[in-house]
């Protein structure tokens, strides 16, 4: 069924279609309308789930954690300060290897206070052990939530997934979304049946303590599991395509990368604008391309190296900053490409902070700046390219 939905409504539709059984959330802009919509579904009787009202985001994730170990499919959503407030529980859930899906409507962090989009909130949770998938459209938000349940519960992954959608640009902007039938979703996503759960007949202890002799082993296998997710994310995306005829490239989404001398790397909805700019510059004969990073954790090192090894300049646009260094994605892309035989120059750009629009002109400016460096190299100069900040 085709419907006119914004990103938040698309996420709520996916949560309902996934037959989610427990939802616990605390309202925060720009996420709130996701859980408001879910509450409406439950109140109207069109979704069979328990909606737990809690006093904070920390409690929301704690409630989801408890519900998930009873063997139910659970969901929560948050943004910005709310995600920051969950920080402690994020580690608990991932460390305890509890499959769960959380939508993060990305918003900048105070101070200065803001409700508008950037990626600082989720990127700051990079090392919490959660899988992070960033989407470009409301359609992809819906589809990725369905995929996320399957990825998280894969027996060799057992790792929670954050589905990140840019605040307002996606969360509150309507587009035509193809909402799959319940029967089709049931075929793709069977009900959640964990190997073990809270059961008085088969007692289990969840989240045991571990001394120095064991802690490291648990963490080693946690790392193996999230690395395994690289394969599983691709596999689930292919499976999704077989069921619904839509695919997002798995870990990375490539656009005119194969012969590009300058490639722009972005996450989230900025990719939509960047596609227009790539097409425009291609019509002018410029060899430019776009790589949209879909999976930030696990980080697709192999895919990046394969896609970027022929580029001469890689421009990375971060909607976040690791203060005291540079954009987080820029650091990661540099590290991924560091030991390639012909290492491309990586230029880091920081923009779109706190909801600032990133215009086509600005993206074209980044491409031209990098193309100019390539031309200077063609004239025999050293390849040097600086980054920038959209002040």
């Amino acid at each position, binding site marked *: 069924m085709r419907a006119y939905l914004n990103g938040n409504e698309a996420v709520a539709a996916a949560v309902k279609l996934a037959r989610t059984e427990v939802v616990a959330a605390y309202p925060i802009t720009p996420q709130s309308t996701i859980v408001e919509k879910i509450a409406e579904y439950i109140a109207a009787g069109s979704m069979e789930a328990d909606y737990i009202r809690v006093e904070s985001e920390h409690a929301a994730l704690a409630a989801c954690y408890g519900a998930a170990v009873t063997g139910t499919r659970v969901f929560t959503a948050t943004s910005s300060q709310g995600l920051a407030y969950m920080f402690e529980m994020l580690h608990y859930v991932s*460390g*305890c290897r509890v499959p769960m899906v959380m939508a993060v409507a990305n918003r900048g962090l105070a101070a200065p206070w803001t409700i508008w989009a950037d990626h600082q909130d989720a990127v700051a949770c990079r090392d919490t052990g959660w899988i992070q998938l960033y989407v470009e459209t409301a359609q992809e938000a819906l589809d990725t939530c369905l995929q996320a349940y399957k990825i998280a519960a894969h027996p060799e992954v057992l790792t929670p997934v954050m589905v990140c959608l840019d605040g307002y640009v996606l969360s509150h902007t309507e587009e035509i979304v193809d909402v799959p039938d319940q029967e089709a979703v049931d075929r793709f996503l069977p009900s959640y049946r964990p190997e073990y759960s809270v059961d008085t007949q088969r007692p*289990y*202890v969840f989240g045991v*303590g571990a001394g120095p002799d*064991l802690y490291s082993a648990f963490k080693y296998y946690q790392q193996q599991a999230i690395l395994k997710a690289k394969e599983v994310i691709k596999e689930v995306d292919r499976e999704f395509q077989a069921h619904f005829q839509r695919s997002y490239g798995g870990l990375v989404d490539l656009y005119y990368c194969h012969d590009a001398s300058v490639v722009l790397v972005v996450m989230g909805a900025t990719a939509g604008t960047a596609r227009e700019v790539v097409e425009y510059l291609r019509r002018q004969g410029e060899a430019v391309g776009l790589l949209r990073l879909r999976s930030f954790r696990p980080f697709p090192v192999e895919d990046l190296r394969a896609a970027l090894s022929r580029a001469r300049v890689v421009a990375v646009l971060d909607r976040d900053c690791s203060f005291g260094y540079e954009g987080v994605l820029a650091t990661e892309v540099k590290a991924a490409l560091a030991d390639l035989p012909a290492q491309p120059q990586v230029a880091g750009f920081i923009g779109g902070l706190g909801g600032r629009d990133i215009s086509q002109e600005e993206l074209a400016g980044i491409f031209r700046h990098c193309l100019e460096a390539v031309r200077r190299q063609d004239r025999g100069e050293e390849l040097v390219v600086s980054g920038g900040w959209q002040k």
Partner: protein
Amino acid sequence: MLTEGDLRKGPNLATPLLSTTTGSWRLVRPVLNPKRCNNCLTCWLFCPEGCFTRGESIVSLNLDFCKGCGICVAECPREALTLVEEGSNDARLSER
């Protein structure tokens, strides 16, 4: 003994498999006087760590998880439990 399969699924283990015993943190421990115990299970009910097990005529104590909080000593209606300092002469004498 934990297998690789257990470790792969995270720190969730079938009871009674527990990876860490907390008894080593204890500075004092309860000692049971078997002559005074009548198996009433008040200690079993109050112990926060589940250290007590019901026996034929008296309870028994598993000190692997006893942190020495002393709640059992305070709650025992027959004064069958006393708290002794770990490593002290009292401890050695009372359990002789």
